[in-house]
């Protein structure tokens, strides 16, 4: 299952310190890792903690000491980490985390929804969205590689149940292959009694901005590092990863853009629509931070319309991927019209019919409405 794909990735990455607090649907990730630590398959220190906040605090301490660290969480757990998410980035610690996308409460809901991770978009964590269990495992390795290159933390993000609890074949790479791709973590600075330094001091107005500017530069470096590492993976594992994945886009006049497991189902819909003669293609966004703005602008230069399917909500503005896309397109002359749709919140199934509906509405209208269009709503339950 997707959760165990993460565990294998972390084992192969030879993580040294793992700290986590259980939460559905993530629990199996660290449950399996604790087994691996207990039976000796993984020589890591497994730290049980009393909250997600403490879990990330442990990772911050261990990463400051120069260790490769890992934690995993979901929804409320990620929200509780919020303060320390900022800390990890500004401390420039390449911590890797798995976040299983789960809806935030209330009402209590353990099912899939991407708002939890997207709400952390301004914390400076890289975010990699996956749509298969193979991609989840490979993304853990990619995450360490890119994080350690850019000294930024990274989140491997995937959908609750549709991936976390789905079993499917995954090719588990050989340890030697992974070692060649991911050499031991050697931070430029770390806690060392033989070479004492000051970490995380008071930083006044005369320096703070420069440190933040360096974080922004690190994101640019990370984008380059992701492309390099994603290409290099191909020579080792035969699979390659780029910030955006294109499916039947060459001659497409309408592009569907989405992230997560819906992108997988969308391939089936694109094939069906192609058979009916509609010139549609799919762009799957893998990298949300850093956002591949330049690549998107170029890729969408000759496209008339784009359908964005968001399994998330920023109340008061709508779907988050749609907002991000509009922001990078707005200064391009003749940019495509962006049709924004919201579906699948709180684990509601995104069926092929829902995806097709989004594409059909886009095809039938010249201009999008101002707001995000909600698909699959039970009208009789609203306005009561």
């Amino acid at each position, binding site marked *: 299952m997707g959760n165990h794909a993460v565990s294998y990735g972390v084992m192969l990455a030879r993580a040294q310190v793992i700290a986590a607090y259980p939460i559905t649907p993530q629990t199996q990730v660290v449950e399996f890792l604790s087994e691996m630590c207990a039976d000796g398959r993984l020589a890591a220190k497994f730290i049980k903690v009393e909250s997600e906040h403490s879990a990330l605090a442990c990772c911050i301490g261990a990463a400051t000491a120069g260790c490769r660290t890992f934690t995993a969480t979901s929804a409320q757990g990620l929200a509780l980490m919020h303060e320390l998410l900022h800390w990890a980035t500004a401390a420039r610690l390449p911590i890797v985390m798995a976040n299983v996308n789960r809806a935030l409460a209330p009402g209590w809901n353990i099912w899939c929804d991407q708002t939890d991770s997207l709400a952390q978009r301004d914390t400076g964590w890289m975010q990699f969205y996956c749509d298969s269990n193979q991609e989840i495992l490979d993304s853990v390795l990619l995450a360490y590689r890119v994080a350690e290159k850019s000294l930024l933390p990274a989140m491997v993000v995937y959908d609750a149940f*549709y*991936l976390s*609890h*789905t*079993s499917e074949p995954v090719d588990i790479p050989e340890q030697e292959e992974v070692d060649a791709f991911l050499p031991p973590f050697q931070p430029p600075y770390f806690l060392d009694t033989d070479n004492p330094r000051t970490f995380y001091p008071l930083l006044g107005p005369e320096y703070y901005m420069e440190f933040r500017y360096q974080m922004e530069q690190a994101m640019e470096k990370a984008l380059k590092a992701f492309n390099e590492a994603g290409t290099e993976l191909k020579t080792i594992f035969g699979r390659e990863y780029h910030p955006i994945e294109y499916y039947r886009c060459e001659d497409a006049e309408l592009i569907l853009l989405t992230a997560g497991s819906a992108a997988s189902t969308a391939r089936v819909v694109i094939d069906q629509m192609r058979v009916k003669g509609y010139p549609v293609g799919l762009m799957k966004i893998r990298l949300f931070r850093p956002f591949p703005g330049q690549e998107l602008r170029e890729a969408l230069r000759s496209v008339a319309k784009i359908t964005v399917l968001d399994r998330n909500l920023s109340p008061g503005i709508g779907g988050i991927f749609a907002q991000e896309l509009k922001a990078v397109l707005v200064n391009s002359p003749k940019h495509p019209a962006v049709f924004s749709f919201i579906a699948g919140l709180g684990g509601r199934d*995104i069926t092929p019919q829902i995806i097709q509906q989004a594409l059909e509405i886009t095809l039938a209208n010249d201009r999008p409405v101002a707001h995000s269009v909600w698909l699959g709503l039970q009208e009789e339950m609203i306005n009561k």
Partner: protein
Amino acid sequence: MVEIRIHGRGGQGAVVASKILAIAFFKEGKYVQSFPAFGVERRGAPVAAFVRTGHEFIYLRTEIYQPDHVIVLDPTLIGPIAVTGGLRDGGWVLINSEKEPHQYHNLSPSHYYRIATVDANHIATQHHLGSPTNPIVNTAILGAFARISNLVSIESVEEAIKEEVPVDREENARAARNAYLKVVYEG
């Protein structure tokens, strides 16, 4: 692609059954996907699990609304749960029941579906799987499925059981073989 939906109650092992079946298909060189119907799991509550298998990678990541076949671990689900909902014509409905298939003809008024029954409770009890009041039937019923569906061999099912079941592996595999021999079906 073939889609199979398993209906059961929390604690009966529907999810484990879906994994075992997927592993059995995988052993025969097929692509597979299995997953639970994402309920909050409580003992006795209706649950469902899904299996997809085919010759190509399976991109579809939604629940199964139009299964090719249905497996029912507890006959008392029939009625409260629309177990044949969306079932494709000619599909199998395999029920854990001591009754004969013709006693379930009301499930398929126009004989669109094929009905099979196997007394997996009895078989599980014979093999000391679970207790007489709470028999573990998930492995036995897969043996019956191998027989009626012709989609997967009983040997692959036995191998998958021995890999995936945490305890009493041999006994679970024998229960599957037993159900393979005892399943009752028409046509």
